[in-house]
């Protein structure tokens, strides 16, 4: 079981999934870092993006990779509106309220999808679906290879936005010191909504890379939400490096876990890590003391 020929492809697969996970987690950790809210609707939002990619392919014939700008823009707008119109208004500033509101949004999104699409699992076929790429002794599915490269590229873009642009500076200012930022003339509400929008835009990108190699049904959000939280908690809430590293790590753990324990039982490894981190080191690898 431990032979290199078996482990290597598993690790490789894990890394490709992990890269997409990292992108998903980056969005989540950005939202937490700036707005200090735990977005329970993150998984459901990814599901929405996946359906968007699915529909664009099956109804409009647009390839997921070509649809990237569209889906990213759409998810950004969705996120901006969601934060501005619903989450902001409903929370009254109390943390527990935000928790419940994002949960409510998640429930609504998931079940609207259930109503519209039924619980069937759907996949798409693209030009690259069956192609593979040789890496060492393994043959990696091309969609996964693209996912790996694409997700990492998006991570880089996100980090560039936050690190180098004016918007990024404003975001970092609000994350660090809301009142001070406001006094400097920064429109905090706008920055909040922008951050939430960017967080969901990451999901849009992730969906474009994910669907060709994966599938969509109304329940996928639930699975992703826990994995995303595991990564964010493992990496440290608000830490980008943590989300990146954590994502890759969790992807590999999931893959290896599946190798040894079968697909469903293998997931337990992730939750075991999650619970262990929460109990033993809640600030994660790179986060500050909780």
């Amino acid at each position, binding site marked *: 079981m431990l032979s290199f020929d078996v482990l290597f492809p598993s690790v490789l697969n894990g890394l490709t999934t992990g890269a997409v996970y990292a992108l998903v987690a980056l969005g989540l950790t950005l939202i937490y870092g700036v707005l200090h809210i*735990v977005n*329970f609707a993150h998984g459901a939002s990814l599901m929405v993006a996946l359906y968007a990619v699915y529909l664009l392919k099956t109804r409009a014939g647009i390839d997921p990779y070509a649809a990237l700008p569209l889906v990213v823009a759409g998810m950004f707008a969705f996120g901006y509106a969601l934060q501005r119109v*619903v989450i902001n*208004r*409903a*929370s*009254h500033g*109390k*943390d*527990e*309220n935000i*928790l*419940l*509101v994002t*949960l*409510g*949004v*998640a*429930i*609504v999104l*998931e*079940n*609207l*999808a*259930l*109503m519209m699409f*039924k*619980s069937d699992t759907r996949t798409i076929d693209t030009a690259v679906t069956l192609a593979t790429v040789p890496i060492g002794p393994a043959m990696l599915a091309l969609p996964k290879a693209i996912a790996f490269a694409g997700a990492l590229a998006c991570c880089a873009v996100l980090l560039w936005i936050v690190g180098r642009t004016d918007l990024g500076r404003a975001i970092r200012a609000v994350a660090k010191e809301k009142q001070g930022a406001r006094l400097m003339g920064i429109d905090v509400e706008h920055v909040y909504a922008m951050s939430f929008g960017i967080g969901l835009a990451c999901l849009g990108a992730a969906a474009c890379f994910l669907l060709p190699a994966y599938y969509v049904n*109304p329940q996928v959000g*639930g699975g992703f939400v*826990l994995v995303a*939280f*595991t990564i964010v*908690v493992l990496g440290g809430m608000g830490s980008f490096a943590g989300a990146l590293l954590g994502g890759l790590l969790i992807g590999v753990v999931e893959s290896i876990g599946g190798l040894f324990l*079968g697909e*469903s*039982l293998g*997931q*337990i490894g992730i*939750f*075991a890590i*999650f*619970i262990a981190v*929460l*109990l*033993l080191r*809640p600030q994660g690898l790179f986060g500050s003391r*909780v």
Partner: protein
Amino acid sequence: MRDAVGIAAFAAAIVALTAWLESGVWLTFLMMTLYGALLAQSWNLLGGFGGQFSFGHALFFGTGAYVQAIAQVGHGANPWLALPLAVLAAAAVGAFVGALSFRYGLKGSYFALVTLAFAEVFRILALSVGFTGGGVGLMVPLREGAANMQFGSRKGYVLLVLGFVVAALAVTAWLRRSRFGARLQAVRDNEDAARAVGVDPFATKLGAIVLSGGFMGAAGAFYVQVFQYVDPAIAFGPHTSVEALVAAIVGGMGTLWGPLLGAFALHALADLTRNLFGQLPGLNMVIYGTVLVLIVMFVPRGLAGGGASVRDAWRSARRSAGHRDG
């Protein structure tokens, strides 16, 4: 004691209603509403009174359900004997999760996430292990008779769940007038201040989660008796967790009658929409989610709590109109 009288009156009213009703549809509505109330009351003990929001309360429900089913299917036990086992097992799981979480000071979102994670772990385990029947689930054979906790008519089930609901009401009322309840709410409102006056937050929260888990276990056992079937998705899936917390919040957290009110409102709404739009899968949950968001937005103290705040506002308006005081 006002609470005791209210609870007794409520119980009497339901018994009378049950005796009088003949329609299967109405009896089922009554049964499911009371069942929903039980879920909400359980959640309310930990969430409303203890201030610890669990997003994975199905963990305890599923434990109770599986113990109830396995005791009968695997060991031929009488369901009335299995019931206390189910409750104890669920309470024990509550103690386990609580000890782990509260020992490490988990609260707020982190606690909610941990409960979610545990529910998922149990779901996966139930899928993978043999004695739970795996993905196929367990079916409790039909053996009608009160001695076997399977009733010919819905009426028996209504009275059974009513018993649980009344027990939960009694425990909730006890929380409102006991030292333990006072300490629990103190920990909820301000943990540091509570510690400063001698309250042990760990022991208090642990007690709450054990009580809450126990009642959820009873609800799980009840479910198995009514539907004679359980599988991992039903036992540990998000549906039950969501129903418990939405009803409690909509009705009013930390109140005596809130969960009952919330369960009734949600079920009535669900039935209404089913009559209007037909049986669409997912519709119920869309409504629950929307109601949750709306309630948090506009009536955060819930129907019962909102009612209380309306009543307080009315009283203080009259008072200040009458005479000016601080």
